[in-house]
């Protein structure tokens, strides 16, 4: 009797395991196959991209597209610019959002809800409708075709989410922590930096990775607010490979693959903390 029950549990366990693995593989195919095709296209010659019937690997397999991009100073500059902008955006967003999140989490003040509502609602404006006035504003501020112009613009789009997440994260931390600093004669400023920031690192990393992704992949403003190629980022570089009449398929795909590697590395590096960080923030989000 007990033996049979055990076998049944074991069978059920094996069945469940097989089910989950099947599910994971199907999902993995859904997620990964388009990427496999992207990878395969990056190794083809442009003439073979539309080959019929389609082939994963063609006779023209080569790494030329990658060499072309890595050997081209202008293309490498796009990568450099993307790093500069995305890192600056990430660090500044974290800093500014941390201060704002701290205010929302630890203080009660007039207009708190209104300000919170405004911060949430600004992200609902479709960016495409803002392009014309925004461009005029950036030119008037002397920020056209500069890193600060791009960085501040990306921050406008990354800040609201970052503030929401950091506020939620700080809310999960007990208030007694910063109260104890104040009892010892410290200020709210010291409480933030000495106590709250060190234990918020996972949450900050989570928000940081997300911010980095948004900035790295942003296209519309990165194009509109720059004039010369020495200020432009990877998404623009990819779009420059789409000519008036034809696409440089293999180079476009190679550049996308190369462009995704840093983000992937970032994710690999931080994935445990990233997930941990979101957990703490998300539970009470």
């Amino acid at each position, binding site marked *: 009797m007990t033996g049979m029950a055990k076998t049944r549990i074991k069978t059920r366990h094996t069945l469940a395991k097989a089910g989950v693995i099947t599910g994971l593989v199907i999902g993995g195919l859904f997620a990964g196959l388009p990427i496999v095709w992207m990878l395969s296209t990056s190794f083809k010659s442009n003439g073979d991209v539309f080959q*019929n019937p389609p082939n994963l690997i063609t006779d023209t397999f080569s790494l030329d597209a990658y060499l072309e991009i890595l050997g081209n100073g202008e293309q490498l500059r796009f990568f450099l610019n993307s790093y500069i902008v995305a890192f600056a955006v990430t660090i500044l967003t974290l800093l500014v959002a941390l201060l704002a999140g701290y205010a929302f989490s630890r203080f009660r003040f007039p207009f708190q809800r209104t300000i919170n509502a405004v911060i949430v609602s600004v992200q*609902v404006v479709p960016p495409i409708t803002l392009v014309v006035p925004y461009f005029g504003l950036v030119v008037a501020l002397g920020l056209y075709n500069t890193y600060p112009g791009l960085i501040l613009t990306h921050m406008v789009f990354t800040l609201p989410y970052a503030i929401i997440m950091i506020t939620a994260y700080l809310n999960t931390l007990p208030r007694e922590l910063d109260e104890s600093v104040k009892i010892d004669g410290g200020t709210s400023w010291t409480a933030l930096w000495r106590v709250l920031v060190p234990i918020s690192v996972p949450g900050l990393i989570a928000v940081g990775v997300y911010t980095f992704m948004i900035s790295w992949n942003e*296209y519309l403003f990165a194009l509109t607010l720059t004039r010369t190629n020495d200020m432009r980022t990877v998404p623009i570089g990819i779009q420059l490979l789409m000519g008036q009449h034809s696409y440089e398929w293999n180079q476009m795909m190679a550049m996308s693959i190369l462009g995704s590697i840093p983000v992937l590395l970032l994710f690999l590096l931080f994935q445990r903390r990233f997930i941990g960080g979101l957990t703490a923030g998300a539970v009470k989000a």
Partner: protein
Amino acid sequence: MTSANVDPAAAPLTAASAGGSASGRRHAGLTRRLVPYGYLSPTMLLLTVLMVVPIVMVIGYSFRDNVIVNKNPVFAGLVNYAKVLTDADFLAALQNTAVFISVSTAAHLVLGLTFAMMLNTKLLGGITKAVFRIVYILPWLFTIAVIAVIWRLLLDPAGVVNYVLQTLGLIQDGVSWLGEPGTALWAVTFANIWSGYPFFMISLLAALQGISADLYEAAAVDGTNWLQRFVHVTLPQLRPVIISMAVLDLIWTSQQFALIWMMTGGGPLNSTEMLSTYTYKQAFSEYEFATASAAAVIVLLLTAALAFFYVRQQREQ
């Protein structure tokens, strides 16, 4: 930016040191009340200058005639709004957008939750799960232009998707997924689902890991099955995250422009026309910036309703 950060630092210090006399105390109270604003000042400065101002300018455009093109536009009242609201294309765009964002969000949620639950299972080893975790976030890593192009390539009448379906005998002739009014909206939505679920998945995975094991143990003691545990423990615990994510996703998806523009341009026959592509055509093809702005303001009002809902739900937490 750096100078703005100094202010909140200075404020509490002054408050602490000037706590002596009566006037000093009043001063200290005032300073203390200003502290949170000090912390918020960089955010408010940035958002006011770079977000609120352009939005106000767009609102201004929407009440004028022939802005941008004409150097001296005149006040036009609600003419532009009337024009947009009676435009059949706008109403079609509104409907398509509603379908696009609700289906996308629902699918993001279902896929995100399913994948997150599978990745959270105790049945598999850590390395297996880590590998799948990487595979599952891949669609998130690519810029939208490339996502649009790769899906056009895959969905081409002579492309891979048709080839596979034909080889499997599921269809006879190549289907023009993006070229048929009946399938285009679904094809675009599918591409959007593919590119957008990882963020949902990651957030839900994080939330799942945050659910206390005690809750499941208690439920197991009561002799519940898997489905009951899912309905009575998992879902209620995930509810706040699901609602926040859903609202954010509705907002983000409604802004999706590049994907649709590059995949179908709103066609065929308006079948994938969205509010974002409609606004773009008004502005950059018809040079009707005033009508484009009016359409933008209407979108703003519609999405502000979503934001309002979001803030209220945030407050309930």
